């Protein structure tokens, strides 16, 4: 498979998957259980993304590094009701500072 084939095939499938969510009939979602599941899905997926992006090394192994410290600062900022951008900047700043000091 050439690089262009890979790029275009991945893009086409990505769009098809996105569109699928819009063409499935809405009645499919009317059940109580389905409604609860679809409301819970983003919570589960976003939480999993936070965990994976914070605690895994490139090979998939678990690790605790400067990103974990960044997340801890972010959570603290959220508990103190800091605005979104402040939360993000504090997390990045924490990780960057720790790395500049030679950790993580």
């Amino acid at each position, binding site marked *: 498979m050439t690089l262009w084939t890979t790029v275009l095939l991945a893009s086409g499938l990505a769009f098809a998957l996105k569109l699928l969510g819009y063409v499935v009939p809405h009645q499919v979602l009317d059940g109580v259980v389905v409604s*609860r599941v679809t409301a819970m899905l983003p919570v589960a997926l976003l939480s999993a993304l936070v965990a994976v992006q914070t605690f895994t090394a490139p090979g998939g192994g678990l690790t605790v590094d400067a990103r974990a410290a960044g997340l801890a600062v972010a959570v603290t900022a959220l508990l103190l009701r800091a605005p979104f951008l402040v939360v993000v900047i504090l997390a990045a700043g924490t990780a960057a500072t720790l790395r500049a000091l030679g950790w993580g």
Partner: protein
Amino acid sequence: MPSPQLAEERRKEVLRQCLSVGVATGAYGISFGALSVAAGLDLWQTMALSALLFSGASQFAVVGIIASGGSGAAAVATSSLLGLRNGLYGLQISRLLRVRGLGRVPAAHLTIDESTAVAIAQQEPAAQRLGFWGTGLSVFVLWNLSTLLGAVVGNALGDPRRYGLDAAAPAAFCALLWPRLKTGDTRTVAAAAAVIALTVAPHAPAGIPVLVAALAAIVAGAIPARGPRDGMDLNDTGTSSGEQAPS
């Protein structure tokens, strides 16, 4: 149900959120552009991924697999598994947007983690729609501009980790998830999903752990609500305005 217009102040508040998220993820695009070129894709292939695939996790997966010598088929499969969640977001977002016909094409293209998270963090239907389109467009524009910047000068910038950009992304997702964690049910699901993802991560290819974690939502949804207050319907997402949603 007809949705009243948003007050000017509320509209600005939502738009600020949209822009903040765009800036946060756009900054991350610099590292994508740099990594993509380093992996051997040319400038146009890199830009095609950001413009056409437009889903950060899938793009990083494609580039990462190619960089590590993986096959094109593995890159496409992993990217698509990661992209499944956008289809799941679409199921929910399509109910908020009420788009029909060709209008579904741009809506589907902009259906990603960020636009979904901002939309569902709002309470009023009008704010949900504004949050979706505003975030989708701001992320699209900034993600593509920063990808271009990253591809052109990224290598000169050096390691994006030095700037903590890899810690900015989970912090942003966490801030977006935060307002959803008001009920015991959602906190349980979030904790279970994180544990599942981390348990699976060392044993599965990139992208699979997050998908497996979706099981937490399916199991939680299938268990009957303990009481009416725990009902997770779309109009009861646990967000109360004023506090929390990212602002």
